[in-house]
């Protein structure tokens, strides 16, 4: 069996009376490309917050690469190889695009191998993402779409074992979504890191990932291959409707 990079067991996150994530368990294997879908407010982003240590789960356990990190701060998760993007891009606005990528390299990514020459330094990561020309531009001046790409670059700089992508294709044209998806697949193929990808563009996502998890009202509703999930009656009733079939 493939090595597990992240294991979440019975993770629950409450905000006051609201249960945003409700006893969700998930194991992500090394090099896996996994999609998470679900309606607005399903708890997808909150689940990412828990997986990356940004929010401490109310209950449940989080194990990263064999180490129990439950309750530890976000930088410990980052140093164990969990990297992420944010639904609303959070780049260091006054720093250049290159410095933003270097940031990950200097801290979480420090001392970890590059994997491939194409990811050796900040500049080559930007080139890989197709935004090398913007290396010297302050990140705050980039378009939102480019800031999303830059966030992937910052995360790659952290040399992760698992990359959590939160709607990196939001607001893109169909062609751009395709190319972003191809890029994500290349990241996985060339670096062998696991990718967990939240996206509302279900159709594209289903074509690119090998496994899909459906969250609904904080709970895990389904977990399986895209084909199996698309055929699942609960999923169709609760969420997909006629969207896919």
């Amino acid at each position, binding site marked *: 069996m493939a090595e597990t990079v992240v294991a979440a067991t019975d993770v629950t996150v409450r905000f006051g009376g609201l249960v945003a994530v409700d006893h969700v368990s998930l194991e992500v294997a090394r090099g896996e490309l996994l999609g998470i879908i679900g309606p607005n407010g399903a708890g997808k982003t909150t689940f990412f917050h828990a997986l*990356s*240590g*940004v929010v401490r789960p109310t209950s449940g356990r989080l194990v990263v690469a064999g180490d129990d990190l439950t309750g530890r*701060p*976000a*930088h410990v*998760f*980052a*140093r164990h190889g969990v*990297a*992420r993007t*944010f639904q609303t891009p*959070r*780049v*260091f*606005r*006054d*720093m250049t695009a290159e*410095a933003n990528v*270097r*940031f*990950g390299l*200097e*801290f*979480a*990514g*420090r001392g970890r191998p590059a994997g491939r020459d194409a990811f050796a330094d900040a500049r080559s990561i930007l080139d890989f993402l197709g935004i090398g020309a913007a290396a010297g531009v302050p990140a705050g001046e980039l378009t939102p779409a480019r800031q999303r790409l830059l966030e992937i670059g*910052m995360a790659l*700089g*952290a040399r992760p074992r698992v990359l959590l992508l939160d709607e990196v294709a939001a607001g893109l044209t169909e062609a751009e979504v395709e190319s972003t998806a191809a890029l994500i697949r290349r990241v996985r193929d060339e670096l062998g890191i696991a990718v967990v990808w939240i996206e509302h563009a279900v159709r594209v996502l289903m074509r690119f990932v090998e496994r899909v998890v459906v969250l609904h009202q904080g709970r895990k509703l389904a977990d399986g291959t895209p084909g199996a999930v698309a055929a699942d009656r609960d999923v169709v009733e609760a969420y997909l409707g006629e969207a896919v079939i």
Partner: protein
Amino acid sequence: MSPRRAIAATLAAAAAVATLPWLTSDFALSLALTCVMYAGLTVSWSMFSGVTNYLSLATAAFFGIGAYVTAWGLGTLPYALLVPTGGLVAAAFAALFGAAVLHLRGAYFAVITFGLGELVRHAITYFEKTYAHTVGRVIVDVPGSTAVFLTVLAVSAAAVVTALAVRASRFGLALAGIGSDEARAETLGVGARRTKVAGFALSAFFAGALGAAMAVRWTYIEPNSVFNPFIGFQTVLISMVGGAATIAGPLAASVVFSLLTEFLRLQFPYLFLMLLGALLIALVLYLPGGLASLAPAVRAWLARRAAGDARG
């Protein structure tokens, strides 16, 4: 300018300033001392608060702690040893206090650091009254004005060199990341808590050392004079007027501001605080990035002039 060259330039400038005691009058030297002291205070303040946006009003507290290290130690320990000791005591104090309060941001952090100054002032007053049965201390056997000037200059130059080195370092990048988006920096592997405590303590070291070095300027030391909140406010104001995100800005503003304050005080003894206040308001309104934000315009103007000279 590369960090190496900037450090070399700083040392050269400090060496030049070090000749002042032999070139100027006592009055000019005491004016220069004020400039140099504020240069050290503002640059070390900006090193942490300007970069991270954790606005600290604790400068007076650290300065006062350093001053009291000298007040208590003079006669037992040599002056040259008291100065770094004052810095270390202030830094240790900042580390303890910082670990407890550096999760607060914005106005909360500012207010609590201001409260720290008051707390330390009252604690020392109480301690002196109860155990030493005194309100203040007369300082005797003080070093000469040249020694004091050179010591303060050495501490301030060290502050500038440290600020330059920090800015070029990984530690400086972490501080900048915290200033820009702390939670994001955390998700990229920065231990924000430890970084902030270290930055706060480093900044406090210089305020403490300057307090220890300046203490001998007063012949009589009491909590109300060395824990003067004015020193803390003045430090923040000068840094902001200069441009707290930079090193050169606070440095230049310290000189301009100290001279201006002195000039206004002599020319308009009754109006000077009002004039100073009005000037500050005008600067904050019309030059929010501080004097440092004028630098590109000045550079462009110089370049135009140079081009003009070349043609003419």
